[in-house]
């Protein structure tokens, strides 16, 4: 076994390097995109500027230097905790994000928990009724639900529940003037959450179902049953236990997957979260905001895959070393 400190140091190094590389890539790519960043700062005024005015404006925002100089400047600032200001909101980037992060965390977090809670129940249910009617129906319905594009499903939901039935709001995180009301928040959350869950649920439930069935076919299940254990005991105590390590690592890896899903859903529902913010910042060349948002998302991805790996190694006894009982006497 490696020394735990070395192990942590190695993981940390991987993390830092990945984030650095990501920031560099995002920085360059965002500047390659066509468009005028000044519009996002000065609005319509930017189009009427003279050449001199433009030059002054660019200098003020630090956009006149070559890209690598800009990057180094940005990096220097970032290391001191200064990520610049948002061109659109004209305040500190972190300030802007702070206001939105909670919303996304609420939507994504709730979605994540519901997806994985339901997926494991649904997976066990299908595995139990393998190839019988309940399983077959669920498999069909699930496959169809996961094939529907998110934005389309979101629009259909808006049409049904907000436009036709008028029972749920179609956009935003809360009604004007009711920011503090919990029930109002929940009402706004229902539709986006439903879309996020429906989109991802089957993918994971099906994975659990198949992994469980794979385990059920293993010979140790026969031995467990031949010693007198019931089918349910074997399924929960043996099979479920054996798929949990891989399930946890899938959970960790899937965080970015679900995060990406919430970003799209947020945009459709105009939900004031990081997804809508990222979309806007990319669209309006709000460089500083975009950088922080991309790095934040990227850090989540990298962190989650590292967690997945650690969890996997910890949970599976085969990954750990143990004594070998060699001779047969």
């Amino acid at each position: 076994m490696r020394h735990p400190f070395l192990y942590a140091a190695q993981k940390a190094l991987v993390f830092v390097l990945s984030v650095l590389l990501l920031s560099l890539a995002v920085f360059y790519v965002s500047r390659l995109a066509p468009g005028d960043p000044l519009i996002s700062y000065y609005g319509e005024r930017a189009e009427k500027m003279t050449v001199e005015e433009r030059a002054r404006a660019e200098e003020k925002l630090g956009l006149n230097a070559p890209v690598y100089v800009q990057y180094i400047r940005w990096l220097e600032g970032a290391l001191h905790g200064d990520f610049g200001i948002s061109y659109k909101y004209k305040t500190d980037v972190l300030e802007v994000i702070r206001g939105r992060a909670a919303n996304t965390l609420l939507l994504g977090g709730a979605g994540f928990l519901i997806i994985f809670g339901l997926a494991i129940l649904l997976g066990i249910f299908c595995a139990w009724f393998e190839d019988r009617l309940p399983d077959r129906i669920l498999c069909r319905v699930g496959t169809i639900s996961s094939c529907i594009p998110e934005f389309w499903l979101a629009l259909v939901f808006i049409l049904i529940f907000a436009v036709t039935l008028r029972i749920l709001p179609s956009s935003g995180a809360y009604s004007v003037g009711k920011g503090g009301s919990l029930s109002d928040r929940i009402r706004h959350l229902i539709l986006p959450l439903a879309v996020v869950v429906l989109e991802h649920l089957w993918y994971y439930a099906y994975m659990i179902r198949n992994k469980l069935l794979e385990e059920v076919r293993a010979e140790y299940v026969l031995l467990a049953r031949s010693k007198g254990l019931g089918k349910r005991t074997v399924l929960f105590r043996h099979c479920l236990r054996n798929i949990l390590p891989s399930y946890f690592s899938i959970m960790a890896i899937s965080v970015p997957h679900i995060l990406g899903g919430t970003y799209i859903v947020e945009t459709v529902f105009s939900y004031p979260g990081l997804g809508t913010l990222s979309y806007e910042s990319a669209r309006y060349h709000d460089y500083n905001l975009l950088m922080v948002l991309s790095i934040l998302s990227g850090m989540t991805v990298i962190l989650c895959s590292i967690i997945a790996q650690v969890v996997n190694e910890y949970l599976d006894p085969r990954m750990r070393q143990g004594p070998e009982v060699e001779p047969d006497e």
Partner: protein
Amino acid sequence: MAKLLEVKNLSVSFMTGYGEVQAVRDVSFSLEEGEVLAVVGESGCGKSVLCRSIMKLLPGSASIKNGQILLDGADITRYRERDMQRLRGRMFSMIFQDPMTALNPTLTIGRQIAEAVQAHEPKISKTALQKRVAELMTLVGIDQPEARAGLYPHNFSGGMRQRSVMAIALASNPRLLFADEPTTALDVTIQAQILDLLREIQQKLGTAAVLVSHDLGVVARAADRVAVMYAGKIVEIGTAEEIFYEPRHPYTWGLLRALPSFAKDGEPLYTIPGMPPTLINPPRGDAFAERNEYALAVDYEEMPPMFRITDTHFAATWLLDERAPEIVPPVGGGWNGR
């Protein structure tokens, strides 16, 4: 002696995409307390399916088409899962070919044995449970049981794993043990140890056993009686002596003659021509007829019944009919191997 297990005209089929596979066809045999019956045959002859269908551990695609299974005189053929669960472990249990896959890799050996004990004694106290686990491990020849109970299957060698599987199978003192190729995955020296252990435990505890094997040497060492299976049917059944020294079915002759230890120096080994038939549409007559050099015309038309040779020895071949021509068997008749 009392009949512990009686199987009457058992037929088991699998539904597959290609059609109905008749894995076990009209099999009858019985087993007495404390007796070891070996079931011999080539892969795909239905010997494993036979064991699993008696324990009702077949996958959902399989079903018992016909016949009766009597355990201690009680008909268990129509038993529900809940009733079977009560029998498994206590009445019969099973050991497998590959001890690596038969053990759950993520649970300690001790825990897996304990689980088997608890399955039928859920209220057992912790200390009594530990004592029983250690006792079982000692019984199957694992020393330092306390220390080794905490190890995982991957810490054990093949022979030790098979011993652990045996401890699990014996946890609730079953009266009948199914051993499905228990030594095939093991080395010869370990194989001999496990076979002797099986025999020793079986005599000590009075457990009856059904030993499934393709290795006639293994069978000779451990079995009291032998059933030879071909294409889902028992073609010959008798005491070990009768099967090895006085075989009557041409398939048994073929199996014995194909062994290198039966070959005379310088002569090629005997081979059974052809391939076993598929069991989707098994032939109308004797399934072995096409590969049988002694086949009679009637073999292709009609399935031979079980002919009685002695009270313990039966064989399904028309050669034993009184109208059949006299044939000098190529093996048997006081034949002795090297």
